[in-house]
């Protein structure tokens, strides 16, 4: 006879779900002395920043900068360091789905609104941050002024402020990543890499170019993500800037025409998206706490494929139009508005406001997944012409779903793993977190032979056309236990 307690069980797990267990001891505050000290530094820094933004003492001086953003960053770094230091090394996701900030609760929405709001001010109301076209910067921008002048030779602008905050965010949350994944060397090296590329390639060197009156360029920026790097204005600027300018032009061309296909062939798109790219760098550090919010449904996947390839087509067309316009005067003045339109909707609204501002609402790779034309291009290479894949380890998968849950790109990794198929997806940025969170050692990011990635992967063109027809089928010969007497 079936147990009485089972007959009495009629809990509706679909409707009521399983939230945070109410347990008597879990809610006790557990901040250590060191953590409190670190938070005090954050508070002091924030206070100093507020006072200086309002034009109070120390504004625009080195002591001012160090006592505001300096203390804030130091405090945050120490906080992550001390709070993670005492945990045992390993995956620490306890309570992730119980935290309002991380699951689109009130705090999550608040964070989303604050971050979106900052981008709105930055792009369209820089005066509110202290920008002035004619005179000296005031407000928040003035705080970073003492750094801007020696580095760039100019007073600070809103973009200089943005660069400083961006780099600091990658540093602070990079330390969090280093501590969180200190048992995982792939994650550690990757985090160091994104910080170094952001600090040196995207911040220090470009600002030195400004100081030396060369055209501005971020050395880890590649067309079509940096859409204008191969547009006439920029290219002519490079050409007119002497030997250095020529070098920059060659760099930009080499990155787009050689780096993209060759490196992607050998390593997959991860060489860029999760090791080099600035957007990826922020997503992998400051965005990491929200990676679980990416939508895993097949509907979201369909939207992704249409949207991201549409942006790729758009940027290629826009590039063609601006060049045709430039060389032949074909479209009259049409290319001007087109450039502006692309810059506004794709460059500012999509990649900035939505791409970063919506981290706490849609996950940390919204832009990379749905909008980035560079990711789309690298993805096409990765899908059909690359050695990269995520290998599934035989029959070890037990479908728990940690991999899919923590995939920032919304890939249902489990769907492949449980069928013992390799994961070969255009969107995978190779962050390696699926392999890290897997409790059974099922997943491994690898650069193997192109032909053994999935059935037919030695015929890339056929694979490409097939992927348009039925993108959900990758038919790699699944692992099957051999029939044998035991």
């Amino acid at each position, binding site marked *: 006879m079936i147990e009485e307690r*089972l*007959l009495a069980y009629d809990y509706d*797990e679909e409707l009521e*779900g399983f939230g945070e*267990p109410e347990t008597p001891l879990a809610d006790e505050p557990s901040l250590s002395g060191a953590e409190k000290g670190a938070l005090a530094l954050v508070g002091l820094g924030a206070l100093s920043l507020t006072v200086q933004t309002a034009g109070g003492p120390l504004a625009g001086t080195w002591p001012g900068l160090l006592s505001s953003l300096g203390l804030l960053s130091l405090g945050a770094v120490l906080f992550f360091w001390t709070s993670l230091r005492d945990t045992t090394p390993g995956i620490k996701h306890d309570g992730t789905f119980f935290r309002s900030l991380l699951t689109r609760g009130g705090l999550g929405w608040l964070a989303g609104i604050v971050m979106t709001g900052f981008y709105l001010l930055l792009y369209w109301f820089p005066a509110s941050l202290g920008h002035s076209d004619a005179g000296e910067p005031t407000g928040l921008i003035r705080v970073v002024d003492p750094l801007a002048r020696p580095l760039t030779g100019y007073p600070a602008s809103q973009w200089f402020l943005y660069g400083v905050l961006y780099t600091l965010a990658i540093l602070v949350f990079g330390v969090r990543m280093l501590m969180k994944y200190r048992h995982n060397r792939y994650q550690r090296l990757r985090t160091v890499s994104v910080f170094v590329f952001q600090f040196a390639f995207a911040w220090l060197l470009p600002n030195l170019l400004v100081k030396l009156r060369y055209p501005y360029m971020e050395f880890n920026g590649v067309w079509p993500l940096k859409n204008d790097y191969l547009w006439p204005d920029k290219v002519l600027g490079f050409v007119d800037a002497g030997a250095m300018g020529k070098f920059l032009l060659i760099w930009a061309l080499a990155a787009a025409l050689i780096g993209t296909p060759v490196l992607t062939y050998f390593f997959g798109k991860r060489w860029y998206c999760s090791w080099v790219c600035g957007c990826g760098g922020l997503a992998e550090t400051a965005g990491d706490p929200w990676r679980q919010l990416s939508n895993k449904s097949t509907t979201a996947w369909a939207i992704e494929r249409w949207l991201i390839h549409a942006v790729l087509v758009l940027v290629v067309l826009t590039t063609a139009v601006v060049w045709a316009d430039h060389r032949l005067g074909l479209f009259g003045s049409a290319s001007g508005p087109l450039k502006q339109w692309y810059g506004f909707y794709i460059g500012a609204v999509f990649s900035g406001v939505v791409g970063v501002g919506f981290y706490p609402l849609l996950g940390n790779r919204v832009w990379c997944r749905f909008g980035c034309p560079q990711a789309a291009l690298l993805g096409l290479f990765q899908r059909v012409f690359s050695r990269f894949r995520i290998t599934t380890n035989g029959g070890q998968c037990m*479908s*728990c779903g940690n991999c899919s849950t923590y995939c920032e790109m919304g890939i249902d990794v489990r769907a492949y793993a449980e069928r013992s198929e390799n994961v070969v997806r255009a969107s995978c940025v190779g962050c390696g977190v699926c392999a*890290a969170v897997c409790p059974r050692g099922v997943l491994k990011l690898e650069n193997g032979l192109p032909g053994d990635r999935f059935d037919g992967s030695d015929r890339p063109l056929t694979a490409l056309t097939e992927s348009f027809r039925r993108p959900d089928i990758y038919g790699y010969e699944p*692992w099957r236990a051999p029939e*044998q007497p035991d």
Partner: protein
Amino acid sequence: MHVAILGNGVAGVSTALRLRERLPDCRITLVSGESKYHYSRPALMYVFMGHMRFEDTKPFEDSYWAEQRIELLRAWVTEVDFEERRLELHNAPPLSYDKLVLATGSKPNRFGWPGQDLAGVQGLWGLYDLKELYDNARQTEHAVIVGGGLIGIELAEMLHSRGIHVTFLVREESYWDNILPKEESGILNELIREAGIELRLSTELKEIVDDGAGRCCAVVTGEGERIDCQLVGLTAGVSPNVDLVRESPLAVGRGILVGRSLRASLPDVYAAGDCAEIETPEGERNLIHQVWYTGKMQGEVVADVIAGDEREYRPGTWFNSAKFLDLEYQTYGRVGLRVPGEENLFWRHPGGKHAIRIVHKEGRVIGFNLMGIRWRHEVCERWLTEPATLDHVLDHLEEANFDPELFRRHEGAAREAFRSALR
């Protein structure tokens, strides 16, 4: 043809999906009183710990089942009328079938301990147990877990993550040492204690104490020590869940008795997964396989057999994996079985969190254990099937490594240790 499948765990679902592949026209009904949709049972712990939401444990989108034309019926079956080929359902009209697949899973063992039926005493197997755990944890500051296996350590980790003090009673002198060799088991003893879980080895449960209102308030150990607690987790293994058919004409031993083709004793009745006990005509011990992949394989065998193929369940080289707190474990082949003539090579990293065991016999490898190191299934299986010589394996350890890229590699140190042990 209408195939009713009882149980929507991995065995039942694997049957249904393979059956749909093989027989596009047959009617398939998946019956479960536990959940509306298939979810991953091993992931229950992650829901409680907040790593995932319940919906994230479902391997398929809800719309998938309609696309596959697999009917889902949420109901408990109270009786099977094998004569009339009909399932009697709790609070629902009966369901007729042509073929029946029983995939009813397991249930936690209860060894007749005094007080084992008190409120606050529970196992962890199904969604109903998870719900019960939510209810019981509400008033728990101290929990006692009895039985040192995989579910026990999972339950300990779950409760510990919520700030509950956990005392873990293990009857054996070292954690899970009926399965693990003493070195691996010793590593886990250390690990459990480092995590802040109170591990009591060589300690038996004598009785669970009633608080006077029908709820547990303490346990008493074999040595007479009383440990106050508000929750008792019974995790001393699981047994096939045969409650439904125990009193029926169907032949039942420890599990539902089936042959290698998973046919039960009555026509058109099959069993797959944890609940099946496979009789071995070879005269060996009957097989009860209770892990994820064997459930999957058995489900697929049943589907093929129903579709008309004469297939047998032959799981091949044994393998399994688990994660103990932060430490991953994999096993392949025959380890810890005390095979006559076997010899063991064991290497442990000085840091303590990586270990490799190679079991060999007459110069050939027969099993591997890995802790804190991932090995490649395909390679292990090839080596064990051939079987490869010990020499070959020691020369090619790198081939088996499946750790993430850029990880520190240990093959060199391990090989050196193995070679010097052999000298």
